[in-house]
């Protein structure tokens, strides 16, 4: 819940409402698919630094 609250505050503060749908979809997908997976940090390198 803390994450949802933080993201909501962030979107409002930055007025980036356009990002809300994709974040919601990703969060839902994340809930369904990602839990239990191991980190894929190594696979994605450049835009993360």
């Amino acid at each position, binding site marked *: 819940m*803390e*994450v949802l609250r*933080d*993201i909501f505050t*962030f979107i409002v503060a*930055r007025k*980036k409402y356009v*990002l809300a749908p*994709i*974040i919601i979809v*990703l*969060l839902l*997908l*994340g809930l369904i*698919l*990602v*839990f239990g*997976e191991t*980190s*894929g*940090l190594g*696979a*994605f*390198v*450049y*835009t*993360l*630094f």
Partner: protein
Amino acid sequence: MSKNILGISAFYHDSAAAILLGGKLVAAAQEERFTRKKHDESFPTNAIKYCLDYAGLTLDELDAVVFYDKPYLKFERLLESYYAFAPKGLRSFIAAMPVWMNEKIFLKKVIRKGLREVGDYNKSSLKLLFPEHHLSHAASAFYPSPFKRAAILTIDGVGEWATASIGLGEGKNIKVLKELHFPHSVGLLYSAFTYFLGFKVNSGEYKLMGMAPYGRANSKEVKDFEEIILTKLVDLKPDGSIWLDQRYFNYVTGLRMIDEKAWEQLFGFPKRVGESKIEQHHCDLGLAIQRVTEKIVFHMAKEAKALTGADALCLAGGVALNCVANGKLLKEGIFEKIFIQPAAGDAGGALGAALAAQHILFEEERQIDDKAMDGMQGAYLGPQFTDLDIEKMARRNKLSFQRLESDEALCEEVAKLIDSGHTIGWMQGRMEYGPRALGARSILADPRSPKMQKKLNLDIKFRESFRPFAPAMLAEEAERLFNLGAPSPYMLLVDTIKKEHQADLPDDYMDLPMMDKLYVLRSSLPAATHVDFSARVQTVHEETNSKFHLLLTKFKEITGVGVVLNTSFNVRGEPIVCTLQDGYDCFMHTGLDCLVAGNYIFKKKP
């Protein structure tokens, strides 16, 4: 009352921790030194444990824990970049999102979990803060500097959106005046060339900088490469901002830095495969991108001067580790004085984050110690060991040793060993914070020896033989040998050795193959002078490292030269040694002649 603040950098590269005890910086270290994994990006559990232990604090006694960037803002940048380039970048998006949705979006939780491994604490009273990445860099440069008022320039790959920033530091305040945003980035541009020239992104940038002087300085080839870079890849604006033509780059949406085919067409040769032979055109291109980088940095510095009118400049961010550009910037005279954060990369973000919270959030006044050179204490902020630890290490490894009672006797003996051609693993006091070994975890050798560079590179460091070594010297020797005009305690300024100390070169020197150039006797300090007569100077000061200063004094008494070659105590691909056992392992597995820890001397041969 002054605050106790823990700063953390992690999850990208070079994770680290730094701690302010009652407002004073007392300890800082990189995680890689403890885990022995170079550029370790994992949560800095060990570094935090060390910092808390050194400060004698528990997590509950901290007023704040400060992470060095804003994860949501970074997430915003990722999503908007994918939006902008869609449908290109789908593969990269699919690879990135699980990482974000699994852990990075829950960074607060991840940090709290990491802290739980350090020790128990009361979750509800823990204050967790997230300053911006470039503010952390700016804070790491300005607050420890000796300046009351200064321009601040931070340049790196990318933080959240910003890839470079210009700010003004005044008293306890930092005001960000201008930012350059992703994907236009000096750091990523340099990394793209690092990649194209066959080195690893995020760690091979030093190698590229070391290779550049082998380029033919006045050649048409280098000039043509420069022109191609500045017309096709980079649009450099008068204020120092740049625009990178994304048709040639791939880092926004792909899993590589560049479009290799497009670069091959541009420069006329394919990407160099790692470990393959370095050809002259690689060096020429290396020199061209180094010059372009310098040009951009100068433009940015001029803009910083115009915006702030300040006499002094503070630098941080990964690009501030480009000591060739730093040395030229100092010479350019845009600013009278320059301070560069010794941990200018992301490791220094841990310190910057803590300092930003201290002065900006908690509004604590800055205390500038007029007697000290700066607030970094020589960057000697890491773990240390005792005589008992040394004796235990000796017993454990069944080593015999010679113990000298006084520092005077020890330094005299070590100076004699260096003079007679011995290579020394030198471990003294607290480990350095930042990428440079500054005489606490160093390998020392005689810079006058023409064969020393090759010996160290091939028999001890096991690294590419073209790479240069740095001279560490007494401040007065720096004046005699170089024209720097400023101290360089953190080995972050490169200068050319004075004409009178340069050797006469053969007429065909510039046309010699790379390795032949390397073995031409170039100066009175051949092992620590690069092929273009340049050297990454370290000035050693009694106030910050009295023992190293004494060693140099003794070496000068014996040889007339107060300079030793100083390189990091590690082998290729490993972090600099931290503990005595690390030092012993490195000593035994390399061609090092002696290990000197505290006042104990260990020799392989009696």
